[in-house]
């Protein structure tokens, strides 16, 4: 069947054809035809956010927790520019998004028209690909390709800018499947001889480490299962980046914990002393490697990544395997066959001595709740429900990564690459929509939560029972910590002055508000939060000047970790200060 339809209608039909459930958006002049096409259409559920950054982060949370692409709809000009932070966030963390933005009519483009912004230009370097559609006849094919690009290869955001007259003008819509251009064909599998070489390297390693990242999660739950299988076959200990948490179960005897700047002592020392590092879907980020010339100095390195540009970008590797993590893990498993694992007992004994440092230990406190303890209790009391955890950015994010434990993929939503404060609440909203029966908690900081606090209204409107657990230390704690450690405690503009009363704020939005002020109230407060059917803010007052350790100071090697109780000079040389 084919008939003549408006561009706006073609867009809506195309989204339905892609199986889209939710569109996270905000209306405006340049998208009114699309909003009119959505009116009364039951096939798509439009989620009205309160700020376009919220739309993009909510779509990210939906995508990360369901494995499906998130869809965003914003108007031209300020609508599009507001969404940019979320788009850039998705780009850094390889989250599949399709973002539709309105644009002024084609005849007005370039005239500084009302609410005109060069959205394609602005988003060029924070999208995987973007389009300006000038003819409604191109729309169906562009949308089809946009979903393909967003979700295959290394996932990422794709933006489609649609001028208002293109939404109104008509073109022929056909039910027939789209003929794809086939210009985007990511490589999925490695060559057999590369796999054989990898097996040789893994089988002969005496001190191997599996260093896994967000790519394992992006590859899908089967990749997680294959990773566990490969680990079982080889016996290699596993560490993960911030983005990869959940790919390997945190209660496994060979789990080393997270690595990097706030990683565990055993994870970082194992990386430093390994003779073979098998990087699976991670990218040697500076937060992970520390000082490059001291990073894993005596190891051979295998790097599995679907993005060839990630290989040798920062750390030169001995054997690149370009392809999808899941595919390559299954190739490795097949080639491994029935080999027996190496005897790694010597290596594991060394790792055990590093574990004995107990690097996540923190001092007790009788006067205030230690934030680490609050996360531990939150974990203990909620783990039976297998919750989805979102975070904001700061110390609380690192404490969540360190003290909350994950056992499966798609349960951990955090802004890793861009480190965007304000990510967590909208991401939790998106995750709750995609997982209506799950317990979704945003572990937040007092400063970050204010960056997209308006999204409380969205949760109220759609009756989403998200929980926001604020580790309220009255500081931009992570900034304060760096100022303490590197600028001799000159706390320039890092105090959270004039904080709102989060409990009454919650009530103002129709949420429940709970305040936890001392240890005696901690468990009861968490239980009360869980027992409440609707959305809740918990204002958990914690020790104000706790620091997040272990920590590798910027410019330092993995072997130069600071643990609780270590003396810290409070200064850094200029070269180290120049690093972020």
């Amino acid at each position, binding site marked *: 069947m084919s008939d003549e339809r408006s561009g706006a209608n073609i867009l809506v039909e195309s989204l339905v054809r892609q199986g889209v459930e939710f569109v996270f958006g905000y209306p405006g002049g340049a998208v009114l035809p699309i909003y009119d096409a959505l009116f009364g259409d039951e096939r798509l559920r439009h989620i009205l956010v309160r700020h376009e950054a919220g739309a993009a982060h909510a779509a990210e949370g939906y995508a990360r927790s369901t494995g499906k692409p998130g869809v965003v709809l914003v108007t031209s000009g300020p609508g599009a520019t507001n969404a940019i932070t979320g788009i850039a966030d998705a780009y850094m963390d390889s989250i599949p998004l399709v973002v539709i933005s309105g644009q002024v009519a084609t005849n007005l483009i370039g005239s500084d028209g009302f609410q005109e912004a060069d959205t394609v230009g602005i988003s060029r*370097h924070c999208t995987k690909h973007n389009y300006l559609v000038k003819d409604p006849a191109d729309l169906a094919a562009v949308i089809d390709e946009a979903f393909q690009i967003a979700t295959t290869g290394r996932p990422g955001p794709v933006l489609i800018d649609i001028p208002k007259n293109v939404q109104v003008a008509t073109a022929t819509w056909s039910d027939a499947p789209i003929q794809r251009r086939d210009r985007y064909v990511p490589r999925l599998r490695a060559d057999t001889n590369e796999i054989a070489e990898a097996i040789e390297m893994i089988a002969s390693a005496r001190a191997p480490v599996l260093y896994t990242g967000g790519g394992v999660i992006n590859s899908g739950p089967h990749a997680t299962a294959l990773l566990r299988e490969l680990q079982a076959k080889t016996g290699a200990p596993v560490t993960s980046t911030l983005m990869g948490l959940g790919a390997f179960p945190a209660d496994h005897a060979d789990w080393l914990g997270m690595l990097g700047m706030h990683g565990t002592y055993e994870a970082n020392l194992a990386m430093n002393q390994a003779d073979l590092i098998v990087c699976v879907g991670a990218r040697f980020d500076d937060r992970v490697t520390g000082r490059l010339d001291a990073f894993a100095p005596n190891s051979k390195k295998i790097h599995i990544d679907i993005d060839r540009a990630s290989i040798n970008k920062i750390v030169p590797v001995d054997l690149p395997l370009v392809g999808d993590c899941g595919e390559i893990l299954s190739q490795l498993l097949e080639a491994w066959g029935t080999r027996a694992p190496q005897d790694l007992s010597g290596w594991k004994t060394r790792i055990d001595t590093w574990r004995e440092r107990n690097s996540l230990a923190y001092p007790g406190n009788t006067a205030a709740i230690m934030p680490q303890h609050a996360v531990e209790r939150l974990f203990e009391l909620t783990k039976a429900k297998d919750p989805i955890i979102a975070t904001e950015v700061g110390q609380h994010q690192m404490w969540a990564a360190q003290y909350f434990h994950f056992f499966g993929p798609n349960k951990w939503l955090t802004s890793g690459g861009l480190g965007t404060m304000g990510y967590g609440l909208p991401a939790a909203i998106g995750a709750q929509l995609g997982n209506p029966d799950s317990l979704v908690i945003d572990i937040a900081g007092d400063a970050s939560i204010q960056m997209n606090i308006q999204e409380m209204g969205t949760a109220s409107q759609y009756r989403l029972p998200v929980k926001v657990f604020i580790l309220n230390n009255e500081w931009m704690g992570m900034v304060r910590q760096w100022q303490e450690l590197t600028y001799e405690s000159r706390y320039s503009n890092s105090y959270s002055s004039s904080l709102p009363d989060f409990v009454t704020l919650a009530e103002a939005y129709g949420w429940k508000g709970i305040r936890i002020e001392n240890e005696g109230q901690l468990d009861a407060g968490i239980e009360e939060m869980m027992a409440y059917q609707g959305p809740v803010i918990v204002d958990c007052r914690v020790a104000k000047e706790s620091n997040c350790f272990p920590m590798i100071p910027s410019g330092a090697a993995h072997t130069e970790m600071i643990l609780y109780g270590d003396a810290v000079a409070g200064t850094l040389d200029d070269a180290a200060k*120049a690093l972020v």
Partner: protein
Amino acid sequence: MMQIKQEVEERHVLTVMVDNEAGILAKIAGLFTARGYNIDSLTVADITENHSVSRITIVTHGPPSQIDQIHAQLERLVPVHKVVDLTEAGPHVQRELALIKVAGVGEKRVEALRVADVFRAKAVDTTTSSFVFELTGSPEKIDSFVAIMRELGLVEVGRTGIVAMMRGAEEA
């Protein structure tokens, strides 16, 4: 005191086949600025009958690891079909076209014409007091011609940037 480190750099010539779509040049030029790569020259023109594919020649310089990254980053762009690093791939020819305006009278004018002849530059415009020479060749050849003309009344130079191609019968 903090110093910024420098690394040994190489000059490479890359050819890039791209879909001829709006914004592609901005995308490629922007990739170079966003990631701090160098562009020494960049030429582009469509090369297929239906104008659907363009061929871009980029001359860049940087440390070998960066050249490899440039290659990979270019390949990652959706509209890019193929990237060839001619400097890696082997013997190739590089050509550039320049227009060089020289003004002068008497001895200098005669000398300019004589040098142009040696370089096989063609006078494409002549007045009683000036020439516009057209010169095609390797960038080095154009450099040395321009250097000589500087002494003989050089007014203006326009250069296309290079286009390059593998030697031999095969497509790169």
